[in-house]
């Protein structure tokens, strides 16, 4: 494991030397994205909600909430509660 971590660190160091440090705006985008995702997850801790409900609770744009939800559903953190009209509801996947 130590060897593996050392190899990864060496590769990343070589990459930083070759390409320069990671772009600041990229890091900022990533931080912002993570924080918005956390807001969405926090809003859902109290129970299932629709996108407009999450948007109103978090202050995020509904469009942005949909994108965050899409990622969280794809990677198994949220599940969809089906609906025929109006808005779907989303809830946090309970860890087994």
């Amino acid at each position, binding site marked *: 494991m130590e060897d593996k971590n050392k190899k990864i660190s060496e*590769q*990343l160091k070589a990459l930083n030397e070759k390409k320069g440090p990671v772009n600041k705006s990229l890091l900022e985008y*990533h931080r912002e994205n993570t924080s918005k995702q956390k807001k969405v997850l926090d809003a859902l801790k109290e129970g299932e909600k629709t996108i407009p409900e999450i948007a109103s609770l978090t202050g995020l744009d509904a469009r942005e*909430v949909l994108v965050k939800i*899409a990622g969280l*559903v794809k990677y198994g953190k949220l599940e969809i509660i089906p609906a025929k*009209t109006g808005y*779907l509801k989303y809830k946090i996947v309970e860890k087994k």
Partner: protein
Amino acid sequence: MNGKTEHNCDTLIVGSGIAGMQAALDIGDAGFNVIMVEKSPSIGGKMISLSKVFPTLDCASCITTPKMAASSHHPRVQMMTYTEVKNISKKADGFEALLIKKPRFVIESECISCRKCEEACPVYLEDEFEYGLGVKKAISIPFTNAIPQFPVLDEEKCIRCGACARVCPKDCIDYLQKPEEITVKAKSVIIATGYEITPMDAKKEYGENKLINVISSLQAERLLAPHGPYGKVLRPSDGKIPDSIAYVQCAGSRDESIGVPYCSRVCCMYAIKQAMLLSGSLPLSEITIYYMDIRAFGKGYEQFYNQARAMGINFVKAKVAKISEDSQHNVILRIDRQEEGSKPQEVKHDLVVLSQGLIPSRKEFFGLDVKLNEYGFIDSPAKTFSPALTGIDGLFVAGVASGPKDIPDTIMEAGSAAMEALNYLKTAKIS
């Protein structure tokens, strides 16, 4: 750049959509060696991203995946994915192609496609496979049934946290991987580079791609696909299940002003197909198709159109003059009904799909001196009798690279291109 490698084959096929795969399988089955080059990380082309096909409503993925598996496992077909063709030159004994294999930053021979790298990656990005509607990670396998199942690291978006490498059980993340130069010597070449759709901002009066609930036909395909980005058809502005959906026909074809005066031949049928699928998945929604005329010739298309009418799809013969939105991002269409005495009117919909046309995927074809028609598609000197010929000995064309066509015609033409290539391989004096 890493070291150079050299390969030989009977036929080099550029593109691995349904046309490229069909031609590769036909030539491989006839006992000749094929190299199929694909610029994307997976084979399958546009067809693998479609929901269903018309007029049978068969699942597109269920038809395409077996072809993808067959071509990738065929003993005489070698696929080279994530590889760009830089140049193809005609030589006395065939063709020589220069290819660049782009780095995935993953050692393919070691990768077991476990997706642990993707799970560990903390960076979420817009997913191009979902045409911008969905989300992927900075290292990800392009889509569920991609072939090959290797992840690709987006080096421009990677924050170099090392998470993917730390969880990889096979230690196959290589952040320093370089592009590889490949030379292919081929006796014949088939161009099967497919198409792009007319850009969303092609018509200024249709919102210039700034209206969030006006989507492209390919985005609509993804919304309708079983593993689509939202798990259901939702409008992008707020995730609402749309109550009212409209299709605007000829939104990127039959229009001299945008340089696409020709009919793209598939838009009427894909719009009808999507409308029928929507009516199945959203039975309470109202679906309207604004059209100039419906072109539904052959293959059961007319019956398909009549079936859609019987299902309750609204067909409105009208020109859409302008598209705008209100403060809630509802889409407003200004329409001119093609009926005597009717006045322009404004109608509102939750979601609007532009039925865009098909345009060539490239402006030039790898430096080959191939003749193009006035719209940029490869021109055959014998369109009526041998549509796969290009005017260059040993070079053939298949699929939409030679002009808009539907999937059955594409598959037939791919078979024709394979047959022309086989004839050429058997009769031409090439070593």
